[in-house]
């Protein structure tokens, strides 16, 4: 336990040193990966701990991302004018639901609240009806498909497949300067650490124990007098919230948000980051997100055609040979080395449908 804490502390300190060592470009990249680490963490909570595999996490990620990007786009648009894509698509007035996003406070609240509410609503619809396992996965996947279809179809309002682009200032700061890159990186890191600690507190509370118990034996917990669906809904909403924050941060770092970043294949890719590192471990989720994205960046610049093969192979590898992920595989070894008598970890394969 202690060892694990030290490792995680060291990892965060190393992450904090990134801007001192790397070029501005790489810092920006690292910042993106950290932003994505949050969505990985969100999946680790809902899937690894809660046993609810969402293949539609892109939905919440996208809600958060779009909420912030809408604000940024409005800031980038001269007063009295329409955002460029609306103009090109022949809109004459700003839709009413765009208006409030002029306010940065509103936008930032929306980043947190929209995905949380939506996830809670979806959770109610699904978990109250006792829909479980692979049904949940397929339904969330269908929903993210519906969401992406909507985004693509409603071009005048959402900029369609192009996504929202061309924004450069946030709270009056120019996003493109190297100084801001560094600041944004630190801000992201701080946010990730905060979310990590928050999630840890969430999971080590009594709530977290009940959630874990529900994953393994929902009926048993129900007959101990718990309304298990409430617990699942709350965990799912919390996971949605983290995904939304992740999306907003990503939109800031990347300078654009588009349907391709959240569609079904991306949503399932999020899951693989988590599965690769170890689905039950929050730190593992961060590791997985950073690792796979780093790989992706390197491989896709070297062999642009090859990345998809590697990615496909990764899915198979993780599912067939490493269901516990890197952390889950290494942890027993580590604890053997450092602490001969540690209670064995629970089997991971329990949460299967």
């Amino acid at each position, binding site marked *: 336990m202690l060892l694990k804490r030290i490792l995680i502390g060291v990892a965060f300190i190393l992450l904090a040193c990134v801007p001192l060592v790397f070029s501005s470009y790489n810092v920006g990249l690292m910042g993106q990966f950290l932003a994505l680490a949050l969505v990985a963490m969100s999946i680790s909570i809902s899937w690894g701990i809660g046993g609810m595999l969402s293949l539609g996490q892109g939905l919440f990620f996208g809600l958060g991302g779009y909420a912030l990007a809408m604000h940024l786009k409005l800031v980038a648009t001269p007063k009295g004018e329409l955002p460029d894509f609306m103009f090109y698509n022949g809109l004459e007035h700003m839709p009413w639901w765009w208006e409030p996003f002029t306010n940065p406070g509103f936008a930032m609240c929306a980043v947190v609240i929209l995905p949380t509410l939506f996830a809670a609503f979806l959770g109610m619809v699904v978990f109250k009806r006792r829909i479980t396992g692979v049904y949940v996965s397929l339904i969330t996947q269908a929903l993210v498909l519906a969401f992406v279809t909507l985004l693509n179809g409603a071009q005048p309002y959402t900029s369609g497949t192009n996504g929202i682009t061309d924004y450069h200032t946030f709270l009056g700061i120019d996003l493109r300067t190297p100084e801001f890159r560094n600041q944004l990186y630190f801000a992201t890191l701080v946010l990730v650490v905060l979310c990590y600690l928050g999630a840890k507190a969430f999971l080590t*509370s*009594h*709530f977290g124990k009940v959630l874990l*118990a529900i994953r393994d034996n929902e009926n048993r917990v129900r007959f101990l*007098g718990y*309304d298990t669906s409430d617990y699942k809904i709350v965990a799912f909403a919390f996971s949605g919230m983290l995904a939304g924050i992740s999306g907003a941060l990503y939109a800031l770092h990347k300078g654009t948000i588009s349907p391709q970043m959240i569609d079904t294949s991306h949503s399932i890719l999020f899951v693989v980051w988590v599965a690769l590192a170890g689905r039950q471990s929050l730190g593992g989720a961060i590791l997985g997100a950073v690792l796979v994205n780093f790989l992706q960046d390197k491989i896709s610049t070297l062999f642009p055609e090859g990345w998809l093969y590697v990615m496909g192979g990764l899915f198979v590898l993780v599912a067939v040979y490493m269901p516990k992920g890197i952390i889950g595989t290494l942890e027993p070894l580590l604890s053997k080395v450092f602490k001969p008598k540690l209670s064995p970890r629970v089997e991971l394969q329990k949460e299967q449908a």
Partner: protein
Amino acid sequence: MSPLLELQDITVSFDGFKALNSLNFSIAAGEIRMVIGPNGAGKSTMCDTIIGKVRPQHGKVLFEGREIQKLSEHKIVGLGIGRKFQAPGVLEALTVKENLQIAVRRNKQWYSSLFGRSATHEADDIEQVLNQVGLLEKMDSNASQLSHGEKQWLEIAMVLVQKPKLLLLDEPTAGMTAQETAQTATLLQSLAGEHSVLVIDHDMSFVELLAAPVTVLHMGTLFKQGSLQEIRDDSSVQEIYLGRAKQEGEHARA
């Protein structure tokens, strides 16, 4: 005095097969009751119906005079009914202590679990019940590492620690040694008066030890009810156990 729990004319059918058929049953406050019956008699289904796992097609379940057959499971449990399942169902991902911590919580709402602190009496309650079932040393081991008998004890402890008014124990002694069985009987007897206990078991030696009134279920209906002595001497009960009364039973059903 009105009974603590009453089943009125309960019918449960699975795809047309009536697992319970117009069953009437009641248990008073503080009473211990044995329920026996051949395999498939509907004993587990009766418990399932009380606790809300199975919904009756017909009939009422009254607990303290209140209809509960439509309440959701956690609410039924919240009224003070605890259930031990036939198949051991401890939470294997957690330690023995954590299992009990989950069971002991009074306020089981999510916000209380998330923001509330555990009440001070909880730790004492857990310790007490661990003492009762003799699992104090194993407090911090993983539930998955317990032996079958120990898992049974843990499950009983999880029911006890909730301090329910009514305990439903489905074959609590399965997989226990003779000594453990005797201990269980003593434990259950000590509960009488304060709690009502409904015990299902096949093990005749356990039934003898408990020396409680016995209800015999057969083909989904109440077949006989009486003191242990009466039931033991009843030839029709012996027959259904030996399967000879099969035809008779079917007549009775039709």
